[in-house]
Structures are given as C-alpha cells and as structure tokens.
C-alpha cells in the first residue's frame, strides 16, 4: 500500500514557542488516519503546519512531491483540502459564493460543475440555502459547507479539524456517514482530528496519539479500540 502523505521530523512554532517536536507519520492512500489527543496536544497545529500556515521545519511529501516549502495556496492547489478548526466560513458571502470560489482556483470548470452537483448530492440541505448568507447558517450547516468547499477543490487528501465540534449527536453521525461515503466513493484520503475519539476510531483505519506535541503511540484503530489502558490514559473513555 502506498502513502499519499509522508511526514518526517515535523516541528512547528508559534513565535518563539515550539508546539510540535519532530513528529513522524504517514497517511495511506485512500485511507483515513485519525490524529487524537487531549486539548492543546498539537492536533490543530499539525494540520496548520502541513499547509504551511505557521512556521515549521521538517519534510512533508505528498504523492511523491515535496510540499515542505510550498505556499499554502499551492499546497491546496496540489490537492490538499483543509477543513479548518472553526470551519472558516466566509460569513458575508452566500452559500453559493462560498462554493463557487473553487472556480477561481480550478482550471477544469466542467469538472468543477460536476463536483457542485456531487456536493448537492451529499448535502441537499445546502442546495436549498444557496442564496443565504453563509454566516446565518446553523453550526451543522456551516460544517457541511466547509466540507463542501473542500470537496469543490477535488482534493486527493482532506484534512479535517474536529468536524463534530459543537454539533448535536445526530448531526455528527450524519456528517461522519457522509465523510465515510466521500472517502469510499471519491477516493479521498483523510487525516481527521477529533475530540470524539470513539467516532473517529470507527471511521479511521489508522490512528496516531499525540501528547504535548509528540507522537506517543500509533497503530491500527482496532489496536487502540481494544486497549483499555491506552484509551483510559489518552482518550478518557
């Protein structure tokens, strides 16, 4: 099995403060990898570092191409779609404009139009709200919009930062079901950060546990699911 992403010695900094310490990890092509850990462990930082949104060192190679030093926009254009913490909604734009933004980035407009239909298949609720200002969407709808914006980029790898954050359990389940479908049908590999460890472990095939900016353990999801000591120590359940 090949890897869509290989990360070696990744460190990241906020000003003088170091938040990640030489972490290594890989994401299998077509797979879903979960990145779990307590608050402040460095999960969001890892995703930001991958997209070069903060100062970082170390190497990240995506599908054979070194993306360590590329600008955020270029990493995105190479097929990495980041659904950020807080959802990154363009509050003052309409739902349609939020989605149509991908037409600026992409050259293949015909394919982009097909992807728009695809998004409406996954999230019919957004289609009903096309002209609505995105800032007035509910939290769940904004999360759907954020995932849809990422889908519109026709990504090979999706980075998802706590898609369940602040949402009702039913909505969370719906979103995770859709994420699974996206992974299977669109062949999008995923790196997912979650507080809801049980749910993330169900979706993911592989997991990394992070503590204060370091990887403490990693392995198949089942390994963590079946290891009560590990679960209690790091995931609190």
């Amino acid at each position: 099995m090949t890897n869509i992403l290989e990360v070696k010695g990744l460190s990241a900094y906020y000003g003088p403060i170091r938040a990640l310490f030489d972490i290594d990890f890989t994401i299998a092509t077509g797979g879903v990898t979960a990145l779990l850990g307590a608050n402040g462990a460095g999960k969001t930082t890892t995703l930001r570092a991958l997209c070069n949104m903060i100062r970082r060192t170390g190497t990240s190679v995506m599908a054979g191409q070194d993306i360590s030093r590329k600008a955020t926009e270029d990493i995105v254009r190479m097929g990495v779609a980041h659904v950020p913490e807080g959802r990154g909604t363009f509050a003052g734009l309409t739902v349609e404009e939020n989605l149509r933004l991908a037409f600026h980035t992409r050259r293949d407009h015909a394919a982009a139009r097909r992807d728009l239909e695809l998004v409406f298949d996954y999230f019919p609720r957004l289609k009903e709200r096309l002209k609505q200002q995105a800032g007035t969407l509910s939290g769940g709808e904004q999360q759907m919009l954020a995932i849809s914006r990422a889908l519109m980029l026709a990504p090979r790898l999706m980075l998802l930062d706590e898609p369940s954050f602040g949402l009702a359990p039913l909505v969370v389940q719906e979103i995770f079901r859709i994420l699974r479908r996206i992974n299977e049908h669109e062949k999008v590999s995923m790196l997912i950060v979650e507080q809801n460890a049980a749910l993330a472990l169900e979706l993911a095939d592989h997991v990394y546990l992070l503590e204060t900016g370091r990887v403490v353990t990693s392995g198949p999801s089942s390994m963590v699911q079946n290891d009560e000591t590990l679960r209690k120590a790091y995931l609190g359940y």
Partner: protein
Amino acid sequence: MEFLLQQIASGLTSGAIYACVALGLVMIYVSTDHINFAQGEMAMFATYIAWALIQAGIPYWIAFGLTILIAFTGGLLIQRFILKPLEHAPVLALVVCFIALLSIFNAIAGMLWSYTVKQFPSPFPIGDPTGHGLISYHQIGVVAVTAIMLGVLTIFFRFTTLGLAMRAAAQNPASARLMGVRVSWMLALGWGLAAAIGSVAGMMVAPIVFLDPNMMTGILIYGFAGALVGGIGNPGGAVVGGFVVGVLENLVGTYLIGNELKLTFALIIVVGVLILKPAGLFGRVNVKRV
C-alpha cells in the same frame, strides 16, 4: 428654486468625484484595514500623466484609457514592492509609509511639471443642455463616467470569480488561502483598482479645479468623509456617502456657512461620524455565528 437645483446638480458632480475617491479608500481598507492617505496624490499624479499624454497629441479618450492602465499598474507595483515587504510591520510604520508616498508623489509631480496651475481639457462639449445654466455637459459627463465605472466594478465583483476571490480574500484571508486563493495578489489587484478608480476621479475633477500638485488634498478629505458616512467597510455605502457629502457640501456651503468654511464642514462630518456612528449609515454589520 432654479438656484437650488443648480446647487444640487453641482453637488452631484462633486459627489461623483468624492464617491470615486471614497471607493478607492474602501477598496484598500476592506482588504488591509488601512487608510491609504496617498490615494489623492496617486490620483493627482495619474492626472498629470494623462495631461502629458494629451500634450503629446494623443486623443483624449485614448489618453484616458492609457492613464487608467498606467494607474492600475502603478498601484499594483506599489503594493508588490513597497507594501508587501511591510506586511508584518506595525500600523504606525504603514501610516508613515503612506504619508511618505503622499509627499513623494507631490514632490515628483512638482519637480516634473512645476507647481504652476494648468488647464486640463474636458472631453465633453462646453455649455449646458438646458440653456439656462442649470447643469453643464461636463457635469453630466462626470456623473455618467462615474456611473459607468461603478457599473463595471459591480459586475466585476458580483459576477466574476476573480472578483469573488478578491472579496473572499478581504473577508477571511486565512480561509481564502485554504481555497487556493493567492491572497497577496488579490491585495495587489485591490491596489491597482483603487489607483485606477482614483485616476478617473482625478481626470474628471481636473477640468473643474485645474491641475496642480495639490489639487486632490481637499478632495481626499471629502472622499474620506464620504467613505465614513457610508461605512468605511462597505463599497456601495461609500459611493452613496460620496454623493451625500457632495450635495450636502454644496447646500451647506451656499446656504449656511459660506464657501470658505466648506472644508471645515467635511472635517465635522469626519469627526461626527467617527464619534456618533463609527459604522457609518450603511455600515454592514456582518452576521457572524460561532
């Protein structure tokens, strides 16, 4: 009554100019949170370029188009080479930079073309269509040119994906990058557009106030007042604000305080809006949900 209408017509003409200046200011403000104090001098400089082109024998409308292009390129280059390196500089450094740009443009214009006042041609016929001095062809032309420009800009921002990308970059730069938008280039485009809009204002006002290196100083203050009245973060509001200030300025100047104090009136608007209604009349309060 006739005199009142005349004042309003002339107010609309100045209003059109203020609207352009206000729009140029807002264009840069929405994407960077900075007020470009050099907006007026950039417009003045562009107008001198137009003057030089016309002196060289180039027909008016071709010179007009060339000037817009040159101003656009100039604005773009200013952002790329002067402001981009200052991306992470403190606000005060930027203020100093804007003021430096202002005096540099003023000084270079004075050096190249001297401080003596020059006539600038109007592309519109002399006289007035009503036959009794209500409104001149130039005044109608100014309003029409502004309206066309605003129409083109509206179409650009609402219906093209590039315009959409610029709006997205202004609203949420981090998120825009994650959609693959080259935010830094969007800022440069914003500077280019602001400079282009300013150049139109300069070329339209020069036949009225005559061309000299200081011709835009007062106009910048009126434009700023207009932008504030409309809500400094709102392009549509800035345009309306520009017209409101133009008409009010004429009426207040004529009927209340006399022409000598008109600029004071603009300053009172600036201070008044900042104190009483900082978001402006049409200040858009973005609905946000967390």
